């Protein structure tokens, strides 16, 4: 629990908490981005360079931008008058607390199985690449097919006109 | 199509860049306050009053006919006529303006005042650097400021000035001839009157 970890954890929690609780959707996106950056910094602090940097590249550079585009297209800049919380928020909080308890119990009681001298393994990008293309090549190819299907589907949806209607200058 | 248009464009701009250091016609900027282009002859900026000779008040051609004041579209000319007369460019006795003001902040350089002046008294100047910080009269030119000599007119508009001078000389010659003819006629009349014999009073008691 070093100082750096505490600061990064605070930034992440504040960012994601802001993403949950602010009213203006754009402020929420900014909070979400801060949360993602905090997570990336935590990955980097653990020594996982590739994962941390890919987190920035993918989550901030693509997912956050996607959410931004969605907000811009829907023009929902006006913040709703009251917090759009669901009515069963107490049940939600209880379930979240239960999940937290389970995770905490698992970590606490499994902590003694971890090596005490945390020798950070030198996990280079080359090893990740090797693993992906030797041991995990089937999941990799399946994900590639999935992404291609998604891309083609998005293209088809965008090209389609509403059935039978051709609007034009007549 | 393969990008050679882009390459040709790049070559052209490179030629411009290096050429601007070497040849004068690739860098045509005239850096204004330090360098100036000479104005062409037909340049017109603001009006001025022409005077002949060296005395600007006596040689002024303007006779205060006020035609230019009436014709000026934005009405920027202000003229006051005098009570007495002085000889004009041709020699005739004419009125003259005691006040001739042009507000050049209003003047639009349309040259109508020049076109309608029957006496070639007002012409267009080529001077334009009149900016001043005096908002309340710095751009109202009075008679003295507007008067410039005929030599100056020759310098800025040579062909026009020569044509005007020729026309004025012709009129002056005509006026002189007329004056000479009138003088001769008057002299003849005087001589005729003087040549009438003094009739002695004969019919003193024949009433």
């Amino acid at each position, binding site marked *: 629990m070093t100082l750096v970890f505490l600061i990064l954890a605070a930034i992440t929690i504040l960012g994601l908490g802001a993403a949950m609780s602010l009213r203006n959707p754009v402020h929420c996106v900014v909070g979400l981005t801060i949360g993602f950056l905090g997570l990336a910094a935590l990955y980097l602090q653990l020594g996982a360079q590739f994962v941390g940097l890919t987190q920035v590249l993918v989550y*901030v550079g693509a997912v956050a931008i996607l959410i931004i585009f969605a907000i811009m297209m829907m023009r929902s800049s006006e913040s709703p008058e009251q917090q759009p919380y669901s009515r069963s928020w107490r049940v939600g909080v209880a379930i979240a607390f239960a999940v937290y308890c389970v995770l905490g119990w698992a970590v606490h009681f499994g902590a003694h199985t971890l090596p005490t001298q945390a020798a950070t393994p030198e996990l280079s990008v080359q090893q990740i690449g090797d693993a992906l293309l030797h041991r995990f090549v089937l999941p990799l190819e399946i994900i590639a097919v999935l992404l291609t299907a998604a891309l083609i589907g998005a293209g088809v949806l965008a090209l389609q006109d509403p059935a039978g209607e051709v609007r034009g200058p007549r | 199509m393969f990008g050679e248009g882009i390459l040709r464009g790049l070559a052209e701009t490179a030629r411009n860049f290096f050429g601007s250091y070497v040849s004068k016609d690739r860098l045509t900027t005239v850096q204004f306050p330090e360098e100036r282009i000479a104005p062409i002859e037909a340049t017109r900026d603001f009006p001025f009053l022409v005077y002949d000779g060296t005395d600007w008040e006596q040689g002024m051609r303007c006779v205060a006919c006020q035609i230019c004041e009436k014709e000026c579209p934005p009405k920027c000319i202000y003229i006051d006529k005098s009570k007495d007369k002085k000889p004009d460019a041709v020699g005739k006795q004419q009125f003259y303006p005691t006040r001739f003001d042009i507000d050049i902040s209003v003047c639009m350089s349309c040259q109508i005042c020049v076109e309608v002046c029957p006496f070639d008294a007002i012409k267009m100047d080529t001077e334009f650097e009149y900016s001043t910080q005096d908002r309340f009269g710095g751009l109202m030119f009075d008679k003295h400021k507007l008067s410039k000599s005929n030599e100056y007119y020759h310098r800025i508009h040579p062909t026009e000035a020569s044509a005007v001078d020729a026309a004025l000389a012709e009129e002056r010659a005509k006026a002189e001839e007329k004056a000479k003819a009138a003088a001769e006629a008057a002299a003849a009349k005087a001589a005729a009157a003087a040549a009438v014999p003094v009739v002695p009073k004969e019919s003193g008691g024949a009433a």
Partner: protein
Amino acid sequence: MIVFSASGAERADQIFVLTKYWLMGYVPTAVQPLASAVLSVVPILLVFPLIFAITTLLERKGLGRIQNRYGPNRVGPWGLLQPMADGLKSLTKEDIVPDSADKWVHLCAPLLLVVASFLAYAVLPIGRNMVVANLSAGVLFFFAIGALVEVAIFMAGWSSRSKYSLLGAMRAIAQMVSYETPLVLAGLVAVMATGSLSTVAIVEAQAQYTGIFPHWFVFTPWGFAGFVLFMIAATAESNRSPFDLPEGESEIIAGYYIEYSGFKFALFFLGEYLGMFATSGMAITLFLGGWSAPFSFLTWVPSYLWFFIKLLAITCGFIWVRGTLPRLRMDQLMHFAWKFMLPMTLLNIFVAAAWKFLPAGIVRWFGCAIFLAIAFVLLTRGLKRRGEFRARQYRFAE
């Protein structure tokens, strides 16, 4: 340690590194990591804004000469003090924030842009042993930081609550996202050739010489294609002409930073130019050999000088292209990115992989070059749209 037994050229080359070590000797041990970080970062914060100032002047004078006029030449001799005048102007201008604007997001956008742009310099090796952070995944870090810039642009465009800003922001983000893929893929070939994502390793792989010629990647067919594609994508990423539709001065009057004035505007300007220098620096690192000299008999010139000479050359190239090409329309931009750049970069990766497996010699040189030329020809023919003029059909209008 190379400290005092070095020759004069080596000492000139390593002068900044030596100075830093000497200064560190005076710092107490407890503060040393912090001091080391500060001493590495402060030169970046000083040098690159200075280069930015010089580049604004160079650009204005260069563009002027290209357009048959003088550039600014009033402020100092030959206009050399013009950047100072510009800086003073932007500092003293009133900072106008629109009434309905989102104040905090409006403030944070230029800050985020400048911070992200500065972060990218952390992995550029400016000279031998002169890199701020020798990350083993340096290239990935660089491209990840580029993603932060897009968020900053969105924040700027949205928070101004103006139609033109929003439109400009959407166009800018669409453009940057579209050109990011070709940028990464074009840079990937250098990583493939080196076998490492570390920028220091990439430069050192190019700093070898056969005879007098260096092993720069730009001298290989795939490297040359990669360099050209990388520079085109870099021009698009920095929103420079001919890809400056998002900030088109004659169309949407500065696009997403239309509501900014004074110092925040200067920060945007700074952030954009810093991004341009960072991407040029990455191009130099990946393809032009970083700090290595172009001929083996020129290695006595200090390495950081070579880096800045190459940076100057690329900047002049940017200015030259800006003065030559007209602006691309949005749909032309997008077509160019997805229909030309992306296939070309993918084929380039294929060629780079083939290069690694073919035996060295003139055959693989010509083979790869011809393959790339054919691909180029076919793709440019595909770019030309034939018979696409028909009556416009609206999908959402009445």
